[in-house]
């Protein structure tokens, strides 16, 4: 519950607050005298009397408030950090179940277990996310339809849990890259520009995009100021995204190359990393890691801060004076009775 700008853990205790007035309404500690006029007028003792009541009220109120458990609610503060906002676009298609970076055809058709492309991608991305404390990550669900599954967040545990979940079970039969690319851009819609924005695509294949999709993508990416990084998990070691003279006829016209050329043509910062081996994959991520330490406004959540100690200190001070005064009274009364 929120009250007075503080969060109260046990707000029910606040109902006990009126008890703090008790000291003003009773005469438990008064000495009955035969005739009131016998008591001399003594301003000093009047002062002490009121002072003791104030202290008692204070100690009761402070203890009640401490029991109600106030704390400063979580606060979001902005600070300047170094990092980027990264939308992860992880291919969850069937082909990602195949083993990564095999040298010969026979191994390529076996179903990859621990070294499937999906598992390899998970391992390296986990490492990458862990190393980037100030980055904000988002995650796009990439299937027949795309959904901005996890809006940009600083919560690393959540990002890692989502990356890990991505490697479970079999891949999906159908993925739609154009949709996924558009969804990634939409992730930044309505967000204040904080600094470097990256769409990080990790896939083992490309797709042909319709003219309409291409037009939309290039418009949105420019508008949103996005960079594209594509970690391309090669299924064939020799194939390159760039055309070369030694090209096999088989891969002259493949979708990967078309996608690569499209990314190059839209005029946004773009880099492709062709990962043909674990080292190349690690190197690609390390390279992105180096590149993106730009200044960025980072939102940080300060955990909520209990305020009970301050109240207990107040109670301690009050009860210390009270105890001292009552011990002194006790000593005085005993002396008088001796």
């Amino acid at each position: 519950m929120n009250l007075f700008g503080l969060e109260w853990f046990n707000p029910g205790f606040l109902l006990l607050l009126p008890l703090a007035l008790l000291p003003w309404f009773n005469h438990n500690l008064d000495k009955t005298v035969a005739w009131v006029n016998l008591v001399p007028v003594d301003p000093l003792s009047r002062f002490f009397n009121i002072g003791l009541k104030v202290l008692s009220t204070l100690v009761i109120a402070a203890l009640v408030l401490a029991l109600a458990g106030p704390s400063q609610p979580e606060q979001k503060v902005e600070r300047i950090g170094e990092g980027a906002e990264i939308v992860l676009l992880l291919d969850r298609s069937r082909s990602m179940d195949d083993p990564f970076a095999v040298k010969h055809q026979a191994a390529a058709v076996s179903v990859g277990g621990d070294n499937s492309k999906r598992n390899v991608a998970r391992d390296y991305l986990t490492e990458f996310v862990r190393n980037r404390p100030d980055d904000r990550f988002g995650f796009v669900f990439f299937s027949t339809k795309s959904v901005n599954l996890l809006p940009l967040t600083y919560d690393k545990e959540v990002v890692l849990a989502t990356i890990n979940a991505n490697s479970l079970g079999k891949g999906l039969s159908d993925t739609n890259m154009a949709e996924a690319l558009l969804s990634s851009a939409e992730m930044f819609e309505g967000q204040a520009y904080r600094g470097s924005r990256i769409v990080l695509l990790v896939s083992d294949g490309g797709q042909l995009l319709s003219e309409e999709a291409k037009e939309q993508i290039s418009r949105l990416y420019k508008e949103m100021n996005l960079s594209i990084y594509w970690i391309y998990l090669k299924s064939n070691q020799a194939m390159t995204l760039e055309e070369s003279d030694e090209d096999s006829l088989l891969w002259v016209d493949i979708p990967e190359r078309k996608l690569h050329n499209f990314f190059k043509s839209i005029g946004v910062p773009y880099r492709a990393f062709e990962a043909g081996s674990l080292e190349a994959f690690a190197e690609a991520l390390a390279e992105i890691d180096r590149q993106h330490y730009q200044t960025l406004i980072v939102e940080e959540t300060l955990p909520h801060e209990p305020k009970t100690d301050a109240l207990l200190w107040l109670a301690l001070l009050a009860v210390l004076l009270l105890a001292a005064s009552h011990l002194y009274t006790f000593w005085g009364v005993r002396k008088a009775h001796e």
Partner: protein
Amino acid sequence: MRLSYQKRITLTAIIMTVALILVMAALWMPHIKRDVKIMDALFVIDITDSMNVEDATLNGDKVSRLTWAKEFTRRAFLDMPCGAHAGLAIFSEARSLILMNPVEVCASYHDLTQMLNKFDPHMAWARSSEVSKAVYTAIRQAKEIEPEPTIVFVTDGHESPPINESLFPRFDGKPGEIHGVIVGVGGEDLLPIPKTNEEGEIEGFWDVNDVMHQDVYASLRADTNMNVPQARTEHLSSQKKSHLRTLADRVGFEFVSSPTKPGKLVDVISKVSETRPQTIDYDLYAWFAGIALALILLVYLPYGWFIRTDD
């Protein structure tokens, strides 16, 4: 009972001294370690077409089963003790797809609900709904997660294509190996199922001739007692309680039909889960401060209203 002035002064002095010590203890007593039992749960939400039927009750209103499932899951997160973990998955076609492994519910509540809000029928990658197989895949995948979560499968139990009870899909695992709860959602009456198109938008209803009405395998079998013509009602949907109960028995899950209180569901989850202890720092300040307060109040209670204290 009447206390003399001298006794009252003595008692007050003692109480104040004890209260002083208690407040000091409240401030400086080190935290003690205490074990709390926490659980790991994986919520699997059915997002197939039949979940769009509006026959679930939420706050007195009729809402779609999916809306109910999402809202109930969100409230269940709130009722789980801090330290417990929750993950999210969706079910469509014949499999469960895990989208977030279990994370701590209190710290990550915001992101959990963000993701949960995104769940809707157009995430479905196919237009079939094979509940039992989806439960099996959820179990298989849960085994890969460390520590193994309890599965909370929220569904109406509508199988499409239908399955004949005697030709239940085979379950390879050991019943009870992974713990779980099947949460049934939906009403008793057969209602038409909204049909979603490619874009995931609702376009009319499934027609009687759009769907299969009999188990494909059963219709191939010669033993005719399986092939008695049945009412053609598979285009309509209600909560399939008996089917879900059978399924729950088969995999060793609990079955809860349309729970009304999220807290109750969390109790069931915690009952079936292998809870694991987690050590937390426990601050005893509340006890010390509480006792100190009670003692001080003893001094100031208005005894005078009930008994005469003068002497």
